[in-house]
């Protein structure tokens, strides 16, 4: 864990990704300080282009796009991290149990995992969201959490299978450690990077999927979120009537959040797997070769 954090702090991609994420986080937390307007108050004429008063213009019904965007960040982050956490927890718990217990337990978990993996996820979510009707961000997060853990189980299980063969697990067993302790204290700490990747990946997935479902009109139109912004902009034919700011603002926000998370994910991968690491070492090497200090 400590190694992972130290590694990340030295990784350029991680630093950039984390910085963006922290900025988004701060903006979300301090949203009320960053805008004079309320999140869903009508504060101007419809579809006004960006101006000094309305940095990112106004929406079709006269809300401030910038305000919606920074308040929407709260929703996206909450849904992303909430659902991401759920997906990761379920995936990790089931994955470790399946991988460690093996036998019948494993077979059952594995069967369901594989089955969920072969049912196309987004269509299923669409149907579920439609079934639930008014899917608030919380509900979306819950549905995502309950339907999207399969991938996590698969990778965690695979990794657990290899960790459980390590001698330190054997020695813990021989010491008479109870099973739950072996799973939580011996195996789990060694899956941190896998879990981390799974978590960030799930967050990305949740953010994207929430926005998608809302864009398709399956969300709660009263929510303040980027997906609902897209949905409203689409319904107001924002692009057709030339109100590009209405559509592009949430697009930009989603892309930025996605990018920051993806950079972090890539970085965790690099830190966890030294082979993937390139960067400064290689630059120094190149410099040394160029200056004739040596060769291969």
């Amino acid at each position: 864990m400590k190694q992972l954090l130290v590694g990340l702090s030295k990784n350029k991609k991680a630093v950039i990704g984390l910085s963006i994420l922290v900025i988004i986080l701060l903006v979300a937390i301090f949203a009320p300080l960053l805008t004079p307007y309320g999140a869903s108050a009508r504060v101007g004429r419809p579809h006004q282009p960006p101006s000094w008063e309305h940095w990112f213009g106004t929406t079709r019904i006269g809300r401030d796009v910038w305000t919606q965007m920074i308040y929407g960040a709260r929703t996206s982050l909450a849904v992303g991290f909430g659902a991401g956490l759920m997906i990761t927890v379920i995936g990790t718990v089931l994955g470790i149990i399946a991988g460690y217990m093996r036998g019948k337990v494993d077979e059952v978990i594995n069967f369901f995992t594989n089955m969920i993996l072969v049912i196309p996820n987004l269509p299923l979510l669409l149907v579920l969201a439609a079934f639930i009707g008014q899917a608030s961000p919380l509900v979306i997060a819950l549905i995502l959490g309950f339907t999207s853990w399969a991938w996590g189980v698969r990778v965690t299980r695979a990794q657990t299978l290899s960790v459980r063969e390590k001698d330190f697990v054997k020695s813990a067993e021989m010491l008479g450690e109870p099973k739950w302790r072996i799973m939580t204290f011996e195996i789990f700490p060694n899956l941190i990077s896998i879990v981390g990747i799974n978590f960030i990946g799930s967050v990305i997935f949740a953010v994207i999927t929430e926005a998608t479902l809302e864009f398709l009109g399956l969300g709660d139109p009263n929510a303040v979120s980027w997906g609902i912004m897209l949905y409203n902009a689409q319904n107001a034919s924002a692009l057709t009537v030339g109100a590009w700011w209405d559509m592009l603002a949430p697009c930009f926000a989603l892309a930025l959040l996605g990018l920051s998370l993806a950079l972090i994910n890539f970085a965790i991968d690099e830190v966890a797997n030294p082979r993937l690491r390139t960067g400064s070492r290689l630059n120094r090497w190149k410099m040394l070769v160029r200056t004739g200090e040596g060769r291969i």
Partner: protein
Amino acid sequence: QDEPLVLTANAEAATQWVRNFNPFSQASMRYSTHDFIYEPLVIFNRIQDNEPNYRLAESFELAEDLMSVTFTLREGLQWSDGEPLTSADVVFTYDYLEAHPELDFVSIRPLFESIEAIDERTVQFNLVEPNALIATQVVGMPIVPEHIWSEIEDPATFANEEPVGSGPLTEIARFTPQVYDQCRNPHYWDNDNLAVDCMRWPQLADNTQVLGALAEGSLDWATSFIPDVENTFVARDPDNHHFWYTPSSLVSFSYNLEVPDEDLSKAFNDVDFRRATSMLLNRQDIVDIAGFGYPIVNDDPTTLGELYADWVDPAVVEEFGQYTQFDPEAATALLDEAGYVDANGDGWRDNPDGTPIAIDLMVPNGWTDWIDAVTIASEDLQAAGLNVSISTPEAAVWTADLIEGRYEMTMNALGAAAMPWYAYNRAFNPGDEGVSRFVAQRFFDDELTELLADFPQTQDREEQGDIMNRAQRIVAENLPLFPVYNSPSFYQYNTSRWTGWANAEDPKFSPVVTNTNPARLLQLLDLEPAQ
């Protein structure tokens, strides 16, 4: 011959065309089936005081006792395959409805005792009870050819791919999932008046696409919500791109007067509370912002508004008109006076007895203009201290909840009709409780019920007016509905290929191309190729 003269139109949004011209299949037939393939007996011109335009029928006559109506068909009518069209076909159609009740999409057959053919061209409908309005109802049901339909075993699933009809455009010259062409009926009785050889129906999935087609000029006739129509459509070719929006269905807010929640029930059933609510609705803002300015504000306490302006009793409006004007100060004053103040200090007004009021305002998900309207309304309601929150269930759930009375407050629509009686009858008929969402507010008044029952019993316009005056007084006084606006019937047209369109300067009939407007046939017949 030269190239056929083609009129391109769009009336329904779809991702693909499925070939279905079954006129009884309200939900799945192509919208061009009625009127264009199956011509009505008579078309009543809604915007010209229901003046009859005789089509298949050359006349009709209502019996003195209002217990029967007799239609006389034109001479020499033929189906599009050349077979004669006679009163037997009419009788067959109604017998058919009796045998297959699922086809009766306007539930008309139960109104009749019997239907008989008097001769080749005359058919008489015998009623179960007196009804002065029966003719306007009869014409809503298409007449189908006996020689075709008598062979059909399962008419509900019959797609009628090669329709044999009575209207101007019966020949399906081309049909693909993306476009179909519907061309001239060689045996059409009124072919001399018809300049259009074929109507072309391109598949368009949504408003945005209709706008695209309109803007580039490929569509001649459309009925679609177009955002910012002046800029996005008219400005593209101001000489040829036009629109004309007329008032249509009434959109209003309502409380559920039979709401199960006791606290809410107290408030909702207090007319002062309702009046205050109505005075908190900023109709102009809702129309301007949620409706892009297209709808027509309805601030008439009787709900009749511009749509039925002829029927409005000015005295009633004079007396109760104040309650349908946006006036937050008066509203809060009224609430304060009636005792709706914040008793528990949570910032929201409570009942006079101190019980809390928290209102759920329900609107179907996906109906964006409604959601916007409700949002605007809720802002003003909240500003006045009413704890209103919005929920957006699926349209199906919303419909079911309205029908079954499982809601607190909603926005609802009531279709436009030839006269206000239809609207009132649909909104305040106790028989429809649990059946239709139009009575969702559940305002049932014995006197009103009686008045509505009396109305069809008379043919006399004055007597009818009298009844309506009394009815609208009851409605305005009790304010069960808070009218907000009449939604526009969208109508866009392009004059570069065809002329003769109805518009504000020449409001000859309603030219909207939706399948609920039979007058569209009149518009079709009035078109002439542009020079």
